């Protein structure tokens, strides 16, 4: 490297031919006057264009969390199981036998709105890197998706492209997808949500953190060459999608899962053989954020020469090299004496590892290009001094009104037909069309794949396993952000507990609109308050996550969607409980209290075209008791199946349990008598209400007494509704007897989405 500048000096020069930094140029970089002022103070001079680019990236919402930090700080983040809380590439929780689980969720919403296939694929790539850079081998993927209604061709195109992108990338890298969710609502038209979660396993002793240390240590760029892709991606993610952003849309990032797989193996080999000091993905804002953040974490400076970075195209400027978001690149820190070894390992995996800089002692983030210093910024302040905003939070009048309203229209159909209509709605129908495009069996550890309440995998060489899920009912959050936030965590925990696993902790992906709008920030603040309260009540700390603001488009704002990703521990793993009825003659029991509240229900929105009403409150204490009950019942192997009642209420939960596994020859019916259950609930509410905290279980009649006793000791309401058997789902109410042919329900449930996607299959045929 060419002679370094005087230690501590913050002198920097314009790169030949670069534009002068004018007010207009500053605005172009999404930096407001206050932030501009802060930069001038911090440097004591006007920034070079390169420096302006660096600030615009690191001070973008995406990197700086400038609107969300104070709220995020209210999350509970500690607990005996926490090895690594928020602030690293991924959170880490302790498991038995010296094992640990690293997991994280990330959004890739705006890139997917522009180019669904590559946007989704590169989203998966990014979250994989966040996990294996902790030293963890990825063992499971999940994804949470939102689109506009499928009757619009554009939405079908986005849906098909995103699913193909998620699948092609994860399938190639060889990580099974064990779960996820998909929902459709008008608010997501033009601004789909694509959240990808990755779960990895590591030996706790091999955990590595992304902190640059050791003055004189070498920075190496590992992996793909740097191109002009995605320049300004981070700031792009931090503004509303508009004609304007269309124009400054960054060059699309193209994913290469093959290189990712090589990076994965090389990184794990580098980490487990103790060859490196630190490693981080060059994700959003690429080389800039990875190097600046690693330096800040280590409390050191770094000096990079962009002239040394291998590029894909000639004539790239330091500005472009620093801000490129080319995929499948890593930044590695190693002691000088290990550089050759690092390069040898990378070569084995057919990857380049190029020294591009070193750790310095003057705390300066310094960038040179063939020796010319083009940026010199106090590193700590660059990362930490972005202004923090406390926007006004005010609930919109409209939201308050909607919450107290009731459906104006009469039901489209009667209570009998409503079930068929609900199961045919893409929101409730089987997501088989989606998850069959994802490899769910690779790694030969899948105990419960997609299609149940939560995915379950075994940890090879041990007795235990993990349960994983992602959940969020955005309709509830839109109506009542606080209760909706609680409900998202509660549903996730219920899904985990239904498999018999004990909830351990969460990661969250907070997808909201423009935080500078008071009604949006109200939703954000309240939803986070709900999430925090629920996590405290359940003892499931927040280990990290991701905030995605500005999810708005010319067609309006998205429903507030705080996706909760949760992991649970299942020990021993052979206790796993599936969610579908298994054996004729089994008891069918309902856990939890039914009041029959229809506010925010799928029934009201699908059958009465009404989204509104008061969201059923979530009793966190009762939820916790229910989780404990499910876990100890599984521990004692009392359960044959357990399925939580969420969207669509009790009847949809019963129908899903009866419809059965997608690959079973057929479903199985049940004869149930609900007369005398939930006195005071309307038939509508009893069948389709969405009271929280309810689970449908089936069990060998021989275990009934034990279950009743267990429910009593946990003070969880238990109702014996009837038996599994026959070809019909039969439900006796005071209002009368309902009968549904299970084979028919099964067909409707599994065909709903494929039927709607037939046209899109041609669109999908385009592209590799």
């Amino acid at each position: 490297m060419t002679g370094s500048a005087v230690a501590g000096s913050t002198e920097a020069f314009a790169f030949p031919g670069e534009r002068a930094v004018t007010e207009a140029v500053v605005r172009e970089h999404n930096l407001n006057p206050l932030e501009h002022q802060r930069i001038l103070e911090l440097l004591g001079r006007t920034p070079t264009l390169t420096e302006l680019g660096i600030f615009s990236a690191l001070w973008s919402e995406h990197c700086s969390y400038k609107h969300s930090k104070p709220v995020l700080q209210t999350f509970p983040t500690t607990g005996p199981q926490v090895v690594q809380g928020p602030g690293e590439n991924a959170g880490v929780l302790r498991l038995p036998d010296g094992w640990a689980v690293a997991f994280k969720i990330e959004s890739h919403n705006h890139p997917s709105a522009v180019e669904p296939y590559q946007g989704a694929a590169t989203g998966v790539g990014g979250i994989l890197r966040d996990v294996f850079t902790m030293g963890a081998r990825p063992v499971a993927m999940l994804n949470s998706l939102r689109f506009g209604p499928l009757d619009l061709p554009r939405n079908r195109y986005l849906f098909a492209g995103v699913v193909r992108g998620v699948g092609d990338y994860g399938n190639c890298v060889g990580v099974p997808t064990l779960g996820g969710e998909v929902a459709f609502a008008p608010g997501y038209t033009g601004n789909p949500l694509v959240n990808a979660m990755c779960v990895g396993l590591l030996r706790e002793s091999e955990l590595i953190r992304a902190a640059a240390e050791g003055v004189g240590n070498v920075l190496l760029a590992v992996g793909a060459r740097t191109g002009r892709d995605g320049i300004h991606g981070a700031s792009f993610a931090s503004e509303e999608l508009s004609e304007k952003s269309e124009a400054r849309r960054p060059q699309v990032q193209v994913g290469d899962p093959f290189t990712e797989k090589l990076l994965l193996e090389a990184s794990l080999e580098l980490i487990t053989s103790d060859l490196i000091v630190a490693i981080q993905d060059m994700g959003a804002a690429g080389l800039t954020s990875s190097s600046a953040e690693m330096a800040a974490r280590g409390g050191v400076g770094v000096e990079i020469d962009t002239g040394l970075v291998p590029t894909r195209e000639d004539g790239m400027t330091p500005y472009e090299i620093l801000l490129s978001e080319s995929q499948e690149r890593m930044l590695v820190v190693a002691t000088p004496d290990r550089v050759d070894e690092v390069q040898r390992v990378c070569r084995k995996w057919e990857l380049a590892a190029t020294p591009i800089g070193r750790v310095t002692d003057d705390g300066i983030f310094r960038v040179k290009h063939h020796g010319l210093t083009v940026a010199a910024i106090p590193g700590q302040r660059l990362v930490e001094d972005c202004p923090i905003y406390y926007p006004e939070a005010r609930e919109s009048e409209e939201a308050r009104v909607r919450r107290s309203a009731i459906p104006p229209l009469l039901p489209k159909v009667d209570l009998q037909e409503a079930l068929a209509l609900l199961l045919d709605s893409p929101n409730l129908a089987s997501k088989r069309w989606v998850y069959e495009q994802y490899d769910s069996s690779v790694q030969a550890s899948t105990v419960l794949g997609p299609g149940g309440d939560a995915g379950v995998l075994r940890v090879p060489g041990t007795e235990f396993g993990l349960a994983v899920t992602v959940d969020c009912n955005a309709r509830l959050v839109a109506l009542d952000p606080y209760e909706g936030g609680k409900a998202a965590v509660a549903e996730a925990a219920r899904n985990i507990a239904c498999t018999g696993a004990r909830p351990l902790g969460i990661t969250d992906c907070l997808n909201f609109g423009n935080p500078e709008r008071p009604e949006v920030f109200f939703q954000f603040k309240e939803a986070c308050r709900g999430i925090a309260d629920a996590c405290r009540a359940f003892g499931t700390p927040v280990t990290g996550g991701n905030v995605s603001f500005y999810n708005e488009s010319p067609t309006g704002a998205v429903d507030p969607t705080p996706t909760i990703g949760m992991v649970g521990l299942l020990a021993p793993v052979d206790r796993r409980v599936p969610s579908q009825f298994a054996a004729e003659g089994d008891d069918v029991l309902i856990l939890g209290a039914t009041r029959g509240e229809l506010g925010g229900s799928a029934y009201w929105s699908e059958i009465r075209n009404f989204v509104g009403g008061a969201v059923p409150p979530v009793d966190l204490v009762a939820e916790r008791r229910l989780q404990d009950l499910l876990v100890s019942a599984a521990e004692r192997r009392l359960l044959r199946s357990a399925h939580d009642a969420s969207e669509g209420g009790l009847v949809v939960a019963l129908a899903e349990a009866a419809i059965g596994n997608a690959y079973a020859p057929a479903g199985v019916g049940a004869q149930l008598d609900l007369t005398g259950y939930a006195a005071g609930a309307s038939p509508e509410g009893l069948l389709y209400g969405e009271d929280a905290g309810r689970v449908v279980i089936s069990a060998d009649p021989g275990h009934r007494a034990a279950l009743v006793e267990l429910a009593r000791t946990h003070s969880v309401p238990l109702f014996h509704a009837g038996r599994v058997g026959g070809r019909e789902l039969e439900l006796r109410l005071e209002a009368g007897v309902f009968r549904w042919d299970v084979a028919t329900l099964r067909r409707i449930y599994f065909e709903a989405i494929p039927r709607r996607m037939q046209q899109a299959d041609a669109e999908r045929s385009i592209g590799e």
Partner: protein
Amino acid sequence: MLNVAVVRFPGSNSDFDALRAAAAVGANSYFVWHRDTDLRGADVAILPGGFSYGDYLRAGAIARFSPVMSAVQRHAAEGGAVLGICNGFQILCEAHLLPGALLRNAALHFVSKPVDLIIEQNQTPFTAAFSVGQHVRLPVAHGEGRFLASADTLRMLEAEGRVVLRYVADSEGSPYQPNPNGSAAHIAGIRNAAGNVVGVMPHPERADDPILGLADGRGFFTSMAAWKPQPNTAKVLIR
């Protein structure tokens, strides 16, 4: 003890699964790298699933030229057993160790699910533990699994009993999970003339333990463990 070499290509992703499944039946299983030029005394070579070289161009098209493949060719010619699973099957076809080709699924989707299959041939190192006609359930996970060969080749495969594994046909109201990719004659796996080289699209190594919900795959590995290399196979081949 049976030596089982699992060949690792860049992009293999079921390499560990195959290694584990072979070890689970008591074999001495170890990795061989795509750059290696010998199989270190292997009795059996397994080409695992995955996306070798990203499956760019055509699945298996580039892997076929890896240095290790000449060692696999030699091993096969000397009568050693070879099992290609999914991507491994694709590589064996591209390398002309097996006839035909595996093309993009007819439905144009990647497909991951359990399917029902019929054992058509148990005179192979990997299916001896099954009886002909037996139904087995195994997971598939592939985007390019549609087996295709010329009419003559298909006739030859049938005539010589070289179809090892067949998907059940897609018939209305059948309780089975049928042909997932539109393969000709519902072919899911075949063997070479000598019978020592076998390729299958489904993943037996992902279905060898009840905890995984599927255990029929174990038979492929118990067959392998019981298999004795026939010294005369080599001559048969050379003739």
